[in-house]
C-alpha cells in the first residue's frame, strides 16, 4: 500500500494567503491612483469646460455715415457709438454710476468687435445694425449661473441693476451662449472674456521645436560616441557621472544658466522662444543622452559582431545597424524629455517668457510665452473669469502631453524591429 500523495493546499498554509494579500495590495494601489487621476481630470474638466463657451449680447447700434470715415474706418471712435447704443437700449440708466455699470455688461473690447464687423462689411455704415458682442466676464458668469443672485448686492460682482438689465436682454432673446473660438485662436488679454491660448500654444511649439532641433542631434551623437566609440577611462566615466547628475539638477538652475549665458553674455533677446528652446534643450539633453545610451546598450552585441564579421568598419557598424535599431528607444526617450520640457515653467520665468504678450508670436525671435507660464499667469490673475481659463489652459496642456506620448508609443511600435 503506497502512501497517499497530497497535492492539495495544506491547511493553515500562509504562502497562499500571502500571495492573495499581495495581489490585493497591488489592485488597491492601482485603484487608488486611478481614483486620484479621475478626480483630477474630472475637476479640471468641470472647471475648465465653461471657458470654451462665451456669452454674447446683441446690441442695436447706430452707425451714422457722418461719424464714420469710409476711407479710414479703423480711425473711428466706435467706443462712443457702442456706449450710446447701450444707453439707447436702456434709457433708465441716467446717473453716471448707472451708465458705468451699464457699460460693464459688455466686454471692454466690444468696440473692436464692432470695428472689425464694419471693416468686413462697410455697407453697414449709415444703418442701424444688430451686432453680437462679447458679454463682460462678470455678465458672462451671471448668465451661466455662476453668480448667486440671492447674495447681498455688495458681496457679488454684479449689481441688482445689472441683473435686471441682463434679465431684460434674456427675455428679449438678445443673449446667446456660443462656442468660444477666441479662446483657441486668440492671444492673451487682460480681459478674461477676450483671453486666448493660441499665443502660448504657438510659443510652446516654437520653443519645443528649437529644443528638439538642438537637443536631439546633440544628445544622440553624444550617446553614440560615449557608448560605441569612447574608451572606458577615467574621463569618460567622469563625463558619464556628470551627465547622470545633470538630469537631477532642478530646472530653475538651467533657467539661471540661460539667463547668465544666453541673455547676459551672448546678448540674445529676452522672452523669445529661441532662448526658451535653448534653455529647455539644456534641460532635456541629459534625459535624451541617458535614454539613448540605454537603447544603444539594448541592441544585442550579436548585431555588432555580425556587421564587423563581414568587414564593416566601426562607423558603418554603428550607423548602419546599431543606431537604426536603437532609434525607436532614442525617439521615445526624446519625446518623453520633450514632454517634460513642455510642462516646465521655472526656467522660462528666468529668461523672461513670463511677460504679458497679447500677440501670437510669428517666429522664434518674437516675444512669446509658453503654455505652463500662461497657466501660471492666469492662475495669478485676480479676475474670477480667469479661473476657468486656467483650468481650460491646463486641459490644453494635458491634451498636448497626451498627444506627445501617443506619438512616442506610435513611433515605438512603428519603428521597432525584432531581432
Amino acid at each position: 500500500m503506497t502512501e497517499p500523495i497530497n497535492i492539495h493546499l495544506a491547511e493553515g498554509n500562509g504562502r497562499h494567503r500571502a500571495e492573495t494579500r499581495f495581489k490585493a495590495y497591488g489592485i488597491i494601489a492601482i485603484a487608488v491612483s486611478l481614483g486620484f487621476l479621475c478626480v483630477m481630470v474630472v475637476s479640471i474638466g468641470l472647471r475648465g469646460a465653461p471657458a470654451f463657451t462665451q456669452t454674447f449680447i446683441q446690441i442695436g447700434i447706430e452707425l451714422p455715415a457722418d461719424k464714420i470715415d469710409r476711407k479710414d474706418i479703423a480711425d473711428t471712435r466706435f467706443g462712443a457709438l457702442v456706449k450710446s447704443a447701450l444707453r439707447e437700449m436702456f434709457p433708465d440708466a441716467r446717473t453716471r454710476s448707472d451708465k458705468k455699470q451699464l457699460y460693464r455688461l459688455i466686454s471692454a473690447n466690444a468696440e473692436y468687435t464692432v470695428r472689425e464687423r464694419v471693416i468686413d462689411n462697410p455697407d453697414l455704415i449709415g444703418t442701424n445694425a444688430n451686432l453680437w458682442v462679447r458679454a463682460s466676464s462678470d455678465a458672462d458668469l451671471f448668465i451661466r449661473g455662476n453668480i448667486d443672485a440671492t447674495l447681498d448686492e455688495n458681496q457679488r460682482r454684479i449689481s441688482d441693476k445689472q441683473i435686471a438689465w441682463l434679465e431684460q436682454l434674456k427675455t428679449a432673446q438678445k443673449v446667446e451662449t456660443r462656442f468660444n473660438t477666441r479662446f483657441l485662436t486668440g492671444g492673451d488679454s487682460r480681459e478674461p472674456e477676450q483671453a486666448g491660448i493660441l499665443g502660448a500654444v504657438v510659443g510652446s511649439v516654437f520653443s519645443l521645436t528649437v529644443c528638439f532641433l538642438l537637443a536631439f542631434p546633440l544628445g544622440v551623437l553624444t550617446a553614440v560616441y560615449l557608448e560605441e566609440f569612447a574608451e572606458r577611462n577615467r574621463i569618460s566615466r567622469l563625463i558619464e557621472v556628470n551627465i547622470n547628475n545633470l538630469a537631477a539638477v532642478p530646472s530653475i538652475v538651467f533657467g539661471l544658466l540661460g539667463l547668465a549665458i544666453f541673455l547676459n553674455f551672448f546678448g540674445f533677446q529676452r522672452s523669445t522662444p529661441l532662448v526658451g528652446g535653448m534653455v529647455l534643450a539644456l534641460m532635456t539633453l541629459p534625459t535624451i543622452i541617458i535614454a539613448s545610451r540605454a537603447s544603444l546598450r539594448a541592441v544585442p552585441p550579436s548585431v555588432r559582431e555580425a556587421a564587423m564579421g563581414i568587414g564593416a568598419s566601426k562607423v558603418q557598424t554603428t550607423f548602419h545597424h546599431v543606431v537604426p535599431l536603437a532609434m525607436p528607444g532614442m525617439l521615445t526617450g526624446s519625446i518623453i524629455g520633450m514632454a517634460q520640457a513642455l510642462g516646465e515653467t521655472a526656467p522660462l520665468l528666468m529668461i523672461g517668457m513670463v511677460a504679458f504678450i497679447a500677440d501670437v508670436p510669428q517666429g522664434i525671435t518674437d516675444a512669446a510665452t509658453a503654455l505652463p507660464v500662461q497657466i501660471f499667469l492666469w492662475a495669478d490673475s485676480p479676475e474670477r473669469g480667469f479661473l476657468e481659463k486656467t483650468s481650460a489652459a491646463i486641459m490644453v496642456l494635458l491634451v498636448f502631453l497626451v498627444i506627445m506620448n501617443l506619438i512616442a508609443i506610435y513611433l515605438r511600435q512603428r519603428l521597432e524591429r525584432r531581432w
Partner: protein
Amino acid sequence: MPEFEAIPDCQPFELTNAAILKAHDVNVYYGEKQALFDVNLEVEKNAVTAFIGPSGCGKTTLLRCFNRMNDVIPICRVEGSITLGGQEIHAPEVDVVALRKNVGMVFQKPNPFPKSIYDNIAYGPRIHGMTKTKAEMDEIVENSLKRAGLWEEVKDRLDKPGTGLSGGQQQRLCIARAIAVEPKIILMDEPCSALDPIATATIEALIEELRERFSIVIVTHSMQQAARISQRTAYFHLGHLVEFASTEQIFTSPEDERTQNYITGRIG
C-alpha cells in the same frame, strides 16, 4: 568506451595543401588571466580545420584572433604572430576591415541583420564596393544563396526579413552573407550548436562543399562533427594546444593522454 566509425572522407595527414594562416607563439590575456599559452598552428588551404576541447579551453579565443574580433574587447591582449598569406595581421599597416573581408566569420547563434534576406547578403558587397550595378548585386546575392544551399527555399521571398527564417535557414543565410564578400577563410564558431540534427546535417554537407573554394576553421563541441567534416583537428585543453594532427590520427591514435581521455568521453 564509445566506438568511432571509420572516417572515409578524411584526408591523410601528409596530403596537405599550403598553409594559408599560421599562428606562432600566440598568447592571449584577458586582463590578468591568460587564456592561451604559446599556440603554434597552421590552417591549411581548402581544408576544414576543427578546434575541439572542453569549454573554456580557448578555442573560440584563438578563432577570434584570426580576424581580430578580439580587438573590440578592451581588456583582451594578443601576443605573438599570426600571418595570413605570409602577412602579419597585427602589423600597423593592416586594415582590420580588409582583414575581415578576407577572413569571414559565422557565429554560434544565427545573427542575421533585422533586414530583408536580400539586404542581408548585399550588405557586405555594398560596403566593400564590390558591385557597380544592381544586376551584379543580384548575381552575387543569387550565387551566395545558391552556394549556401538556401536559394530554392528563399528565392520567392528575398524581400522578407531574414529573421523570419527558421534557425537552420538563418545560419545558412549567415554563411551566405559571409561568402558573399569572397573571403579566403571562413571562421565558424560552433555554427550548429543552436540547431537540430537535420539542420546540422544540412550545414555539414554545405561545409564539405564550401571547402572547395574556401579554407574553413570550425570550433565545435561535437567530436562526431569534427570527425565527420574536418581534415585536421586541434585539441585544446586549458589554454594549451595539446595536439594538432590529421583528424584520423586524433580520433584513432591520439598521442597525448588528455586527447585520448577527451575523445573517449572520459572527461569533458
